[in-house]
């Protein structure tokens, strides 16, 4: 998998090679028509200067007219076809990336360096950069190479040394100048990017932290910092403009010098009779016109750099091995909806370290060969093997019988959400055991497992569509009445009714901005609508004010009847309804028992409870 990103990119574009060939051909034809127009025009005038009969000129006249018309048409077709390629490539890249990322989500998207929220927008931007891979990176050198080759043969047919002079200048302009400007600008461009990032940080600091800046009277200082970085950035950009100027000037110089040198070389030839004078103007103008093909090359070089950079980032994500491994056999039918956790240990993998503590696929084989549910994983009655490493979940055991309610509480970083992630098979545990309905959790496919679970998490993503569509994700065939029942239970129906378009109001970027509490209630409604036998509430009432929170808890209390429920929270309210509470701290279980029992212990739970008030 360590193949060069350039070749992998080419492979992604491979299905469109017919279209690419066509677009390239049209690009060459466009430049070719320009050359043809100038060459035939020059030939026409040179011939006419010798005063032959009109008939002798007719072919040249036809040629001039043909090229005069064809260039525009070729240009038009070339743009049309190359946009075909661009959009086809875009569609392919999106589906390719989605297919690759879907099995990796959400684990790979949540871990370490990808945790920052802007990863996904960078992915989208990277794919957009790559959609131009053909138009901006592949096409210009291809066209230039074909034009150069064609000119070599064309000029060579008249005089070999003219072809040599031409080729020397053409290569200098097409390869030398891009390389030179690339070398000159590389360090500067990098500095521009760094300074721009620094400026960005300072501006974001200055605006997001404006309240602090103003409250502490630091406006002046913050402004000065932005000012200094801004001026530094502009200064660097101006240095970069010197390189750009050099590139423009050199390109222009080489083109005209090529014509000049060819003229200088052709004069003795004409005198000695090695070249007919009538072709002199033709060859010079053809050479000048052909430089049109090399002018976009320096840009192509820069785009190549950014394309490879974008590709490298995408491949890096796509290549990461899946965190969970789907069972090779069909998911079992759970005997009931109880959850049993024994000696569970889990550790997020360290950054950059390849995953798979559990082996290399051998385990799956083992599973496939030993299908009896009860003997597949003998419960090891040992503690987690390496006590020195910090486990996110450290030797946790509990049983949650069907229809009961278990609460996991503890400060942030205690391992509560990790446990939820393990229960949903977003990650696979390495040691210990989780059983659902009598079967090991790993025997269920992710999709089948998710069918059994209704989940409300602490951050709710609402899609850029109507409220109704957002709710229907949970159950596409739900009736309007069922929808309203769910929203009423989640205390959001009345609010939705007040919106101008009711359930058809758009939410998200282009629509209504909902408060965190409103989003949360929509998420609860969504879970209610799904009506799954297991309910996982991961900080479901975070972001709600106390009174609403209490109402929601009342709803949840009726709702949890008949369902196996797991509540994850750091706010110790509403926990009287839990049959058992596990108090976690730094991955370890420190206390367990029902609410009042835990309070009477006057331990960690009791202190948390006091602090919460």
């Amino acid at each position, binding site marked *: 998998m360590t193949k060069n990103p350039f070749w992998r990119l080419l492979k992604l574009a491979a299905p469109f090679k017919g279209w690419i060939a066509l677009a390239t051909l049209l690009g060459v034809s466009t430049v070719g028509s320009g050359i043809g127009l100038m060459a035939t025009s020059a030939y026409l*005038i040179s011939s006419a200067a010798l005063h032959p009969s009109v008939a002798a000129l007719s072919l040249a006249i036809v040629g001039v007219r043909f090229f005069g*018309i064809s260039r525009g048409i070729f240009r038009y077709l070339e743009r049309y076809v190359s*946009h075909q390629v661009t959009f086809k490539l875009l569609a392919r890249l999106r589906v390719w990336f989605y297919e690759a990322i879907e099995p990796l989500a959400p684990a790979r998207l949540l871990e370490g360096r990808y945790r920052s929220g802007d990863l996904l927008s960078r992915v989208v931007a990277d794919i957009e950069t790559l959609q131009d891979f053909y138009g901006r990176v592949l096409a210009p050198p291809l066209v230039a190479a074909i034009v150069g080759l064609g000119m070599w043969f064309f000029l060579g047919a008249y005089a070999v040394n003219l072809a040599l002079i031409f080729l020397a200048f053409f290569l200098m302009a097409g390869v030398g100048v891009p390389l030179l400007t690339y070398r000159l600008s590389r360090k500067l461009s990098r500095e521009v990017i760094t300074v721009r990032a620094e400026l960005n940080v300072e501006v974001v600091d200055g605006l997001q932290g404006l309240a602090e800046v103003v409250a502490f009277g630091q406006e002046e200082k913050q402004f000065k910092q932005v000012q200094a970085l801004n001026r530094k950035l502009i200064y660097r950009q101006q240095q970069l*403009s010197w390189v750009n100027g050099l590139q423009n000037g050199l390109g222009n110089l080489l083109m005209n010098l090529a014509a000049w040198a060819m003229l200088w070389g052709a004069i003795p030839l004409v005198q000695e009779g090695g070249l007919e004078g009538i072709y002199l103007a033709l060859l010079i103008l053809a050479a000048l016109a052909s430089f049109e093909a090399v002018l976009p090359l320096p840009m192509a070089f820069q785009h190549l750099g950014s394309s490879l950079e974008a590709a490298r980032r995408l491949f890096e994500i796509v290549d990461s091995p899946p965190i969970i491994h789907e069972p090779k056999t069909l998911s079992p039918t759970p005997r009931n909806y109880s959850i049993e956790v024994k000696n569970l240990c889990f550790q997020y993998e360290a950054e950059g370290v390849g995953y798979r503590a559990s082996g290399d696929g051998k385990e799956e084989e083992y599973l496939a060969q030993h299908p009896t549910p009860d003997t597949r994983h003998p419960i090891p009655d040992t503690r987690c093997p390496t006590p020195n490493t910090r486990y996110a979940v450290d030797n946790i055991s509990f049983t949650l019988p069907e229809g009961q309610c278990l609460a996991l509480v503890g400060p942030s970083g205690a391992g509560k959400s990790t446990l939820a992630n393990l229960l949903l098979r977003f990650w696979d545990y390495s040691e210990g055991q989780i059983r659902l309905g009598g079967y090991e959790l790993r025997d269920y496919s992710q999709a089948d497992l998710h069918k059994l679970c209704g989940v409300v998490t602490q951050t709710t993503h609402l899609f850029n569509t109507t409220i109704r569509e957002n709710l229907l994700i949970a159950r596409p065939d739900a009736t309007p009445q069922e929808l309203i029942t769910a929203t009423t239970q989640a205390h959001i129906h009345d609010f939705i009714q007040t919106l101008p378009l009711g359930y058809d109001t758009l939410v998200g970027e282009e629509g209504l901005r909902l408060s965190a509490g409103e989003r949360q209630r929509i998420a609860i409604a969504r879970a209610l609508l799904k009506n799954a036998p297991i309910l996982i509430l991961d900080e479901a009432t975070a972001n709600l004010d*106390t*009174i609403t929170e209490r109402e929601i808890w009342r709803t949840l209390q009726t709702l949890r009847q008949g369902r196996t429920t797991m509540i994850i929270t750091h706010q110790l309210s509403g926990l009287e309804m839990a049959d058992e509470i596990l108090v976690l701290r730094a991955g370890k279980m420190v206390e367990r028992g029902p609410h009042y029992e835990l309070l009477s212990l006057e331990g960690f739970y009791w202190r948390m409870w006091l602090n919460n008030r």
Partner: protein
Amino acid sequence: MKLEKRLLQQTRNVRVYLAITIGLGLLMGLLIIGQSYFLSQVIANIFLAEQGLAQVEGLLQILLLIIIARALLNFWSEVSANQAAGQVKTHLRERLFSHLQALGPSYTRGERSGELSHTVTGGVEALDAYFSQYLPQLFLTVFVPLIIVIAVFTADFLSGLILLLTAPILPLFMILIGQAAEALNKKQWRSLSQMSAHFLDVLQGLTILKLFGRSQVQRTTIAKVSERFRQTTLGVLRVAFLSALVLEMGATLSVAVIAVEIGLRLLYSQISFQSAFFVLLLAPEFYLPLRLFGTKFHAGMSATAASQRIFEILERPLPATSQADITDSPPLLSLGTIRFNQVCYGYSDNGENVRPALNGVSFEIQPGQKVALVGPSGAGKSTIAHLLLRFIEATQGEISVDGTPLQNFAAQGWRKQIAWVPQNPYLFSGTIAENIRLGEPNATLAEVIQAAQEAQAHEFIETLPQGYETAIGERGARLSGGQAQRLSLARAFLKNAPLLVLDEATSNLDPENEALVLEATARLVQNRTVLIIAHRLYTVYQADQIVVLEAGRVVAIGTHQALLQKEGIYRELVQAYDGGLV
């Protein structure tokens, strides 16, 4: 081809550079004429007069000089165009940032801040192309063809006439098709960005889709959306590309017409070969600026679009606060009784829907008193704090200090009296020490350490790799919520102001952290006048006075005991905290 007036005004300071750029462009036009002239002369001499290298050597040398001069001018004009753009960007970005600062936190708060910082950085950057490419090219498109056509006229009247006649046809067609195509083009780019938004939306919601078993279905949706987009867009582009077709076709056809015309007249000796060749060389150069303008057009359009947002911000009037700074204001000698008298405030989105946040709020804070604001979210607690900090000004009613209206003091001077501890403190990229020094930029390290000790932050700072010099943020240490809280408290200790505005954090801390924060807070509120937005009952018990808010109104004022006697929202709140579900 709209010229954005407000953008053009920005050129005031950079006219010299623009003039140089345009002047260089014109000079290049002259050199093109010279080059064409000498090239046609040399070829004519070799081809028809059958001269040798020795005879044309002089001409070749002149030609070489012209070629070198052209390259130099090319270089120089690029540099000076960038100089102009750079100056405009420097100026605009600084103005924009300081204007946003003056508009204050109530304008920049929330989700908006991302968009605003993008406007300051990326938005201003988008103007570059307008000043470095679009504007100079606009002038050159008018003047360079003019010089060339004059030169052609001196060589051959008829060809000059053809150029002159065809020249207006091209822009005319371009405008006719261009406007329709531009609208289509714009629509297409908009739908492209919408499609990207859709894709991003799906990626962001991938977890949800998976949980609801919908992620496989989305694969086909993405393919379908992209395919539909390709088809409709190409349908649109078929038309949009017509402008390119017309431009290209117009230019090449005119060259072809001239070539045939001079060729035939040359046949009948109505024109000399040298003049004919000279005209042929100039004909494409005549159309070149116009074609180049076509390619810069997009840059100009997107810059104009970006500038709309920039000017929208710049033209937003500053709140009254910032104007008060200019006038002489009495110094504040000591902090007296702060009185809110029938204060109203409404948030407005773009000046339209005014959402009332406060409606006739009255209460007093006596010197040394601790006043707690209590109420459900959205009741107006933060608005009161912001009014006191003068991030915003009351729309009605008055806030006064010992009878003097708050407006009479300069806002910056007034804020010197206040230490503010927000609910979610913002940590700046920079070191721990720098972040604490926000409270007092000139504080010595010893003072910073003392403040950190008082805020119970010293110990954890000591455990960081570089202690007080540890960088925070993306590249540095990630601090927990409790640690950030304590840094914020350290700022307040360092500032040591008589009035403290404290927005209590809703707790998500482990007991140890929480205890440390509470301890530091308790120390901070000593001997100070304090306004607390309270989220904990414990804090409320300690207050001298409790102001209960609901939907922008004060519903009750009193001590904990007094309020508990009464039926109402306070009792409900206390029960919600206290009694759990029962």
